[in-house]
């Protein structure tokens, strides 16, 4: 019976990596897709006291089925509180939350994120959604977890537009802005897990996903990527984590892909 959970996909590996970043008792603002699966996986395993918050105003939600959207109607029944954007994002803005999830079209060497445009803002080659709550989450949450598709054009030396500041150009530049949030702590990419140097704030590779070569990751990064001295393979998911993801959190394969 357990044998059916021994294989895992990249999406499952990333959801598990996200889950590992969350500590028990933390207040977490959750988006859709893999962050959502990661957060609820954490709650079902090592972080039962995690408080799940949605910017749509659902606080400490206990959805009966996995929500599809940040404003899914499954969020309200069972929540400790249901309000609106001022309730959901107001507490982010006040610096009361521990963890937020971010993603985007581009992330650069110092964790700055772009969800606005590729090219010139005034004459965009491609226009994306905009900030949404991304900038609010980046400014207010104590730390952020960035999840990214790892491709060279998505990991440029410098983003085309700073939607959500990371560490600006490194060092103590972020501290001087006086944000409540300390900035991104990790990037969970499709190729590996990256963190930020404590002083220079430059992104470095901490682990590569099973089957991925470090050279491939370097070739898909738009600057000379630093590699941790103790770089290692990303820890694979446990059988139980895979079972929870497939059978309980995403049985229809909405986020993990149809089976």
């Amino acid at each position: 019976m357990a044998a059916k959970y021994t294989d895992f996909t990249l999406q499952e590996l990333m959801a598990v990596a996200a889950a590992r970043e969350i500590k028990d008792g933390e207040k977490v603002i959750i988006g859709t897709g893999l962050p959502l699966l990661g957060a609820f996986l954490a709650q079902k395993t090592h972080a039962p006291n995690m408080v799940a918050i949605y910017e749509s105003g659902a606080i400490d939600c206990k959805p009966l089925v996995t929500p599809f959207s940040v404003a899914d109607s499954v969020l309200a029944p069972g929540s400790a509180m249901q309000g609106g954007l001022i309730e959901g994002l107001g507490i982010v803005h006040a610096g009361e939350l521990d963890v937020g999830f971010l993603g985007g079209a581009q992330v650069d060497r110092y964790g700055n994120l772009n969800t606005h445009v590729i090219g010139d803002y005034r004459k965009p080659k491609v226009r994306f959604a905009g900030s949404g709550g991304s900038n609010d989450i980046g400014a207010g949450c104590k730390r952020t977890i960035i999840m990214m598709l790892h491709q060279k054009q998505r990991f440029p030396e410098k983003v085309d537009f700073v939607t959500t500041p990371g560490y600006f150009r490194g060092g103590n530049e972020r501290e001087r802005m006086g944000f409540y949030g300390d900035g991104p702590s990790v990037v969970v990419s499709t190729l590996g897990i990256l963190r930020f140097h404590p002083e220079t704030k430059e992104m470095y590779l901490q682990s590569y996903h099973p089957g991925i070569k470090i050279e491939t990751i370097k070739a898909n990064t738009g600057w000379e990527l630093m590699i941790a001295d103790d770089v290692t393979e990303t820890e694979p998911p446990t059988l139980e984590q895979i079972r929870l993801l497939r059978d309980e959190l995403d049985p229809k394969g909405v986020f993990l892909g149809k089976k």
Partner: protein
Amino acid sequence: MKTSKVMTAKEAVSKFIGDGMTIGVGGFFHAISYVITHEIIRQQKLHLTICQPSFNEHADQMIGAGCVDRIVSSYVWMEVFGPLHCFRRAMEKGIPHKIEMEDYTNFAVMARYLAGALGIPYIPINSMKGSDMMNYSAWMGENKVKLVQDPFGSGKEYAAVPALTPDIGYFHVQRADEEGNCQMWGIWGDAPWSMRACKQVIVSCEEIVSRDIIGRDPNRTILPGYKVVAVVEAPFGAHPKHTQGYYDVDRDFIFKYIRESQTPEGWQKFMDEWVYGVEDREGYLKKYVDTYGMKQFLGLKARDISSSSVNYGF
């Protein structure tokens, strides 16, 4: 007995929404008033400035129809469903015409509404600082956002965003009475602050109830009626979005719109069928049932998860 404000969507839009107005659109993915949105499109209102913290396909349809010149928002997209093609065509290629957007954050738009609702000129916020949203603006120029020092001497800097007070707002709620007292539950989204900031409000609702029903649970009232100028009864008035306790989101229909709107021709065909080609919301629902069958339509209806009632006694 106060005068009833009940009217059709057609009457409400023709009477209260004019070309060139700034409009506060209510809702956050949940409870978007499609009944009013489609009427604005059918009546070809022009040169509108539309405001909402996060916009979805309803904005896309108004942009494609050429109703919109300006957007105040933080987000025009549809989550994991994908991009909105009219928005992108307008921003990237000026189709059907060039539009402008003042880019804020979700919270920043709320702060602008909050300032508007409270009658103060601006609110200082922690968001936006250091981002390129501080460096670029559209028609508002330097009045989009300003960096200000805390006047109380903390030495901290904030992004001050100006009050937003649209000429008129519209939103969708579960129930309202004839005077326009609105009750809403589930995800409030930008309500109540967005609607409180508007000078006038059109409300669409699933049901019109008596003033007595409103008074039995006044804590659930999200907007008192004095600002409301029109009450439009429209069951399934937010479809393809959801309205808590009434019906769920129609994901297949949203995917269908996003798929078909990939080309201007596909978009036009969708709109001819579902907006221009129907008389009103009743016609739209009839078309839905004719196309997809009663079983699928009723499949959208919400299950019963009712709350307990509380004692307001004294």
